[in-house]
């Protein structure tokens, strides 16, 4: 978890926590690690947001939601999209990973393990429903660009796996 590396002023955290990823509503933007900077200057909140994937359609919505959340407490927010440094799944907080699993999405594995499972060579992805690793890749791309589709061969449930991005 590298969210600490992001420059976020403490008093803004409660508001930021209320804004979630529209695709994975259990994750707040802080859990996801997409807020790289949030500072208040002369009554205006300046936020630097980084996309998970270049074409992530959730970014525009998140930007609007951030502005709305701050306007509700009478503050104006300006959101800037930045690309560098590129987002990594390492930036998802441990709390975020737990929430993700409870929500039914398997957490990203390490980079090498990720390669092995996406090439279909090893069974390492843990089914978020029953916990079995007897799972297989159905599709390299899932419901969104950041996920792949898996199926559990024990409980037979299909599920999303959050791909490792480094």
């Amino acid at each position, binding site marked *: 978890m590298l969210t600490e590396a992001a420059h976020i002023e403490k008093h803004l955290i409660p508001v930021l926590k209320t804004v979630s990823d529209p695709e994975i509503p259990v994750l707040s933007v802080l859990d996801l690690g997409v807020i790289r900077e949030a500072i208040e200057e002369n009554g205006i909140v300046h936020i630097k947001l980084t996309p998970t994937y270049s*074409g992530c359609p959730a970014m525009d919505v998140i930007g609007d939601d951030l502005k709305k959340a701050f306007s509700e407490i009478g503050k104006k927010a300006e959101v800037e999209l930045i690309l560098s440094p590129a987002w990594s799944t390492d930036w998802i907080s441990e709390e975020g990973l737990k929430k993700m699993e409870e929500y039914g999405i398997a957490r990203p594995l390490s980079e090498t393990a990720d390669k092995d499972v996406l090439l279909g060579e090893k069974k390492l992805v843990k089914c978020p429903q029953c916990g079995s690793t007897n799972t297989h890749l159905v*599709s390299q791309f899932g419901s969104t660009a950041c996920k792949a589709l898996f199926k559990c061969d024990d409980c037979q449930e299909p599920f999303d796996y959050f791909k490792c991005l480094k």
Partner: protein
Amino acid sequence: MNKELTDSRLLGNLYNYILTIADNSLILAQRLGELCGHGPSLETDIALTNISLDLLGQTRSYYQYAAKISGESKTEDDIAFLRIEREYKNCLLVEQPNTHFGYVIGRQFLFDVYHLMLMEKLQNSPDENLAAIAKKGIKEVSYHKRFSSDWVKRLGDGTEESNTKMQEAIDDLWRYTDELFLMTEAENAMVKESIGIDVSSFKVKYYKEVSEVLKEATLIIPENKYFAKGGKEGVHTEHMGYILADLQYMQRTYPNMSW
């Protein structure tokens, strides 16, 4: 030559250089987008449209940058939607139609190998904007390449029919590969400024890597003597007009409309 003139010429070349890279992503994204709801299976449909989305995201970043340095009050949408055919600088390969799944995969594979090599070099460009887009893009493009190479192997080394179709696509698309490595005026100018990439420098590496995958896929490597070119200079194949008609229709009919 006064400094202002040099600067404006430099910016003009940089603008064209950005489009040379970005237009490939836009047109390929549009081609892949045509398959939304029409993929051969649900999984490949989702995969192809996800790849399209990645490419479109990269395109937006490039166009936003190009709009910023254009010196006019242009937006990314103007650049995407309001140019005439001759002003698009994409290579001929990416505008080729989705004839059948073999073509979709063949086109993707032949482009992905090139695209990744370009991004790997571009990430070290002293131009911070281009470097940032490339660094972000590499992660996505390597995944695209993995997907398309897998399918080339699966189809090539599959049934007799899938092998025939994959071979047909590779044979037909091969003629568009050489153009990827032809240098345009804007590319040469940007290489001179150490900002741009000399694409001809990884041509040998490209054909070596492509050939290795084709061999593994039990496909025959074409031995063309004739190669088509022109896209990067704005001279496109007959398919381009139809793509633009689809792409530009809404903006031409309802100028400045937004969703």
